[in-house]
């Protein structure tokens, strides 16, 4: 079975997207390999191109870079950061991140739509990070997004699937890859969203703050693959805890 994740016409075997902002660069290669990630996000603000501890030198060559616009407080700044990423050969993928709240780091959906529209017109493969709102997701589709990246819980919180029901609505209604980004705290939660029909999962903090980072990356890779397979296989019958009524409720009907 050839089950690929397709984003903006590009195909990927792995559905695990690795965030890179919170762990030590020297273990980057091992983490990518263990998790089997084919896409790695990077904050351009932290790249330090040409300088010390440049993250770009630590990401394996075969990996697709997904630069993000973190640090942007409005659409205009996000657009400028994306253009800069392209100029320094980070490719055409961009994760739009517009945040005007230093406490919860909540994405600004309105500015995100504006940035998505501008960047999509400029030929970027735009993957916007958003609070899971159906109307906003529809607007992002119209704006030319290549995927939609709803948060499961606030960034870095490891709180798991706080927005589960709203993500399910996006899975059911939006005809683009849905990639859950932020908040996933453990592999079992990644597995659960994949079972729901989400197309991929992005993780950073949950891996970076683990006792054994490389092993946790592996666990996420496996959980995401297992969740995907479960979704494709279709869950089997689930027994109800309450006993079925012994006499049928519709027995009175005549032919």
């Amino acid at each position, binding site marked *: 079975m050839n089950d690929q994740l397709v984003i903006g016409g590009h195909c990927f075997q792995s559905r695990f997207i690795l965030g890179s*902002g*919170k*762990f*030590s*660069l*020297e273990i980057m290669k091992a983490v990518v390999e263990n998790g089997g990630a084919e896409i790695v996000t990077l904050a*351009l*603000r*932290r*790249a*330090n191109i040409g*300088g*010390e*501890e440049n993250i770009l030198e630590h990401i394996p060559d075969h990996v697709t870079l997904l630069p993000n616009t973190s*640090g*942007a*407080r409005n659409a205009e*700044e996000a657009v*400028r*950061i994306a253009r*800069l990423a392209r100029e320094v050969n980070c490719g055409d993928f961009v994760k739009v991140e517009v945040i*005007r*709240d*230093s*406490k919860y*780091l909540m994405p600004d959906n309105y500015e995100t739509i504006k940035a998505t529209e501008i960047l999509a017109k400029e030929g970027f493969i735009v993957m916007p990070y958003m609070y899971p709102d159906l109307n906003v997701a529809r607007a992002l589709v119209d704006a030319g997004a290549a995927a939609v990246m709803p948060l499961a819980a606030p960034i*870095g*919180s*490891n709180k798991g699937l706080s927005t589960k029901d709203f993500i399910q609505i996006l899975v059911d209604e939006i005809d683009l890859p849905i990639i859950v980004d932020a908040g996933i705290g453990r592999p079992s939660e990644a597995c659960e969203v994949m079972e729901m029909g989400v197309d991929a999962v992005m993780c*950073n*903090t949950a891996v*970076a*703050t683990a006792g054994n980072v490389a092993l946790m990356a592996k666990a996420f890779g496996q959980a995401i693959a297992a969740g995907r397979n479960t979704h494709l296989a279709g869950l089997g019958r689930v027994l109800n805890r309450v006993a079925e009524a012994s006499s049928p409720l519709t027995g009175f009907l005549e032919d």
Partner: protein
Amino acid sequence: MAIKKTNPMEYGKDMEIIDSDMMNQIIKMVKNYDYNQYTEADVKRVMSKETLKPDDFGVILSPAALPFLEELAKKAVTETRKHFGNNVCLFTPLYISNYCENHCVYCGFNCKNKIRRGKLSFAEMEEELKAIAETGLKELLILTGESRHQSGVGYIGEAIKLAANYFTNIGIEIYPLNSDEYAYLHDCGADFVSVYQETYNIDKYEQVHLSGSKRIFPYRFYSQERAIQGGMRGVAFGALLGLDDFRKDAFATGLHAFLMQQKYPHAEIAFSTPRLRPFINNADNNPNDVHEKQLLQVMIAFRLLMPYAGITISTRERAGFRDNVIGMVATKISAGVSVGVGGHKLEEKADEQFEISDPRSVPEVHRMILSKGLQPVYTDYIRV
């Protein structure tokens, strides 16, 4: 001849007054803050909470919390890692002038102190900037003494423009400005402003700031707010711990930052925790004394109140302390520090403000961070 003392609550000529009640709110809350009222049970109750309110923050700062320092440190490290991962940012300060017009009794730069004064010419500055940039650093903090005459806004603006050729992040630690002046320096390339209130106790503030514009308490207090209104990305807060009752000053500092974040949710918030060292052989006798234990308690309290705020660890602290608080509570550390005017490439042109306790170079600090399993970060923001 007796010098006429001015009223520290009265604004000077040309000082901008903004419409804000934050100062009165904080002064009232600090006045009502009685840290001796809290018990072990209060500390345990607060430790079980996921997020802290200002009252809870007061509990963590209390003497009752001190026996729980180890448990609090464990809680703090979890929060720091959640928000910052392994990252520790590196920067260095550059003093471009040490002229000062204030008479602050605790400060080596004060105008009554007969020290070597000087400021860097732009050519000298360029030399210094190049030398710092060669160490790989990308974040610079430009400092001056507080003299509008010797180091005017125009001079500082030109310094920032020069620095912007070499550095991606430029912060300033200078005298308080009006919002339009902050806007000008933002346009020049700076985007982070540190202003330390020294003490939030107005009586004490008046006693230790004998003359100069720094004596005006409210103008200094509202610096951060004017800076944000002027378009700066972020602001740092701090009190000189030990100058007065450090628990009250730390409480006020935390509240100040907390209320600013509530009012300006987009603003980046950071803390610094400079302290006056206690006299030896005077241990625990003075409530103002800030030993390392108390200093760590303050840093932990800031971390738990605002887990997302940056905390810078001062070069005034010894290497052993600095090395252990990064990753636990602190997120930023200086390296290759000179606190005289110049000193990176040129010989120091003027005297230092204080003695540093950690003279390590950038590569030395870099290696130390790696040895702790942490990640040195040279740039954390991109100006577009």
